């Protein structure tokens, strides 16, 4: 009788554990922009681009940001979609600030350099747009806005590029 009771308890506990783990695991697939620190901490290695942008935007103050989904990707980044494994991108939606964050995970490290050219051009474009319009915001475009880490490449223009870069690096290793 005692053995049976213990087995029942063990089975229930195992089922409960599995249920709770499943609940956690299912949460980080579609959320773009809100995966909080507890979720990202559990997936530090090789995080999804959406998790990286979410973490950075959670840690650093951004203006209101508009997400660039795949249907609008080519409008802002002329990147071959077939070579992208995943990406996540946001731009300042109001047109008031140069803030922008885009993280690409490429299928191959060889594809990263082509994206770098695209992102460098994007930085140039933002520089042209904002240098006379909001000179006070130009500190965000500091020449260190395009970062590469393995198969990952990011464009980061924000009020704390160093902090965002550190997060990007830590989440892509």
């Amino acid at each position: 009788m005692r053995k049976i009771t213990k087995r029942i308890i063990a089975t229930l506990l195992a089922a409960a554990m599995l249920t709770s783990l499943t609940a956690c695991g299912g949460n980080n697939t579609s959320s773009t922009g809100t995966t909080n620190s507890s979720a990202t901490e559990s997936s530090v290695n090789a995080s999804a681009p959406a998790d990286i942008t979410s973490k950075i935007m959670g840690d650093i103050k951004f203006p209101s940001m508009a997400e660039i989904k795949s249907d609008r990707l080519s409008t802002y980044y002329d990147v071959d979609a077939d070579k992208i494994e995943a990406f996540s991108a946001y731009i300042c939606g109001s047109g008031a600030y140069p803030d922008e964050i885009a993280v690409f995970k490429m299928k191959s490290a060889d594809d990263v350099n082509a994206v770098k050219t695209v992102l460098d051009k994007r930085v140039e474009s933002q520089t042209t747009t904002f240098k006379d319009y909001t000179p006070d915001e130009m500190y965000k475009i500091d020449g260190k806005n395009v970062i590469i880490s393995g198969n990952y490449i990011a464009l980061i223009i924000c009020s704390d590029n160093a902090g965002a870069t550190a997060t990007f690096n830590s989440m892509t290793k």
Partner: protein
Amino acid sequence: MATKKKKTNKFGITPSVIFLNLTVLLFLFIVFFFAYNVIKEDTETTSSVPPFTAVTEKPETSAPESKPETENSDTPSATESENSDSSDISAPESDTSSENSEDETSSDTDTPDTYFDKDYFEDALFIGDSISTGISLYGFLDSENVFATQGLAPSTVLTTEIDGKTFSDKIASFKPDKIFIMLGTNSVGYADAEYLVESMETLISDITSTCKSKVYVLSIPPVTKDAEADQSNYLTIEAINEYNKKLKEVVNGTSAEFIDFNAVLSDADGYFNEDYAEMDGIHFMGSTYQVMLSYLQKQTS
């Protein structure tokens, strides 16, 4: 032979099993607590439906309602709009979870209408400054529908190239059915209002002489009290209202139509309703464009 007998209760469960149970229950409680918070945060701060994510905090304003300074007689206070929108603009962010959803067409709610039909604006062209760039940056309309850039002013619109096209090029290639113009914010703080409205008159004349598009001219939006206090932008409610008043007079003398969108965005004191404003108190939040497009559709259909 003293066999060590484990202590058990009447159910035969040892204290270690009870302890294990309690530990696991505590763990489950923590896990579910975090999971609940994650899900709750998900639903509150984002939505996958609208093409924007408001990551920004609202501008920190202390006592925004305290300055009763609306001596303007013409534009603000939401009196011109014929429907309930004007008095229902107190909580714009609360109704932004679904772009273009049909169920948002109700007109008797406490929130402003954010419904608009993207197809209605398929042949529309928006001419403006950085504020108008947000229409396409947020993805509410395609970039084809917008001829706007940072710093554009009434006096520079005819000579400025955007993406390699002048205004005339754009009109000729796009052939818009409707043209919406909202210009002046970049100049109104320091340029003479008369000069600005003359430039707008020239612009309207240029458009109507080259194409048959219906032209709508929008009053420029207000700024928040904090933005007005920021001397660096030269923007004051008084200057904005003066410009809008003269603009209305000029536009009414043309074939174009004046639309007082400023009134929709203003609070009781004539300042930019904080809920609509970006951090700088001048530009728009994402939902503000929905309100704008919804309002324009109603006013022009």
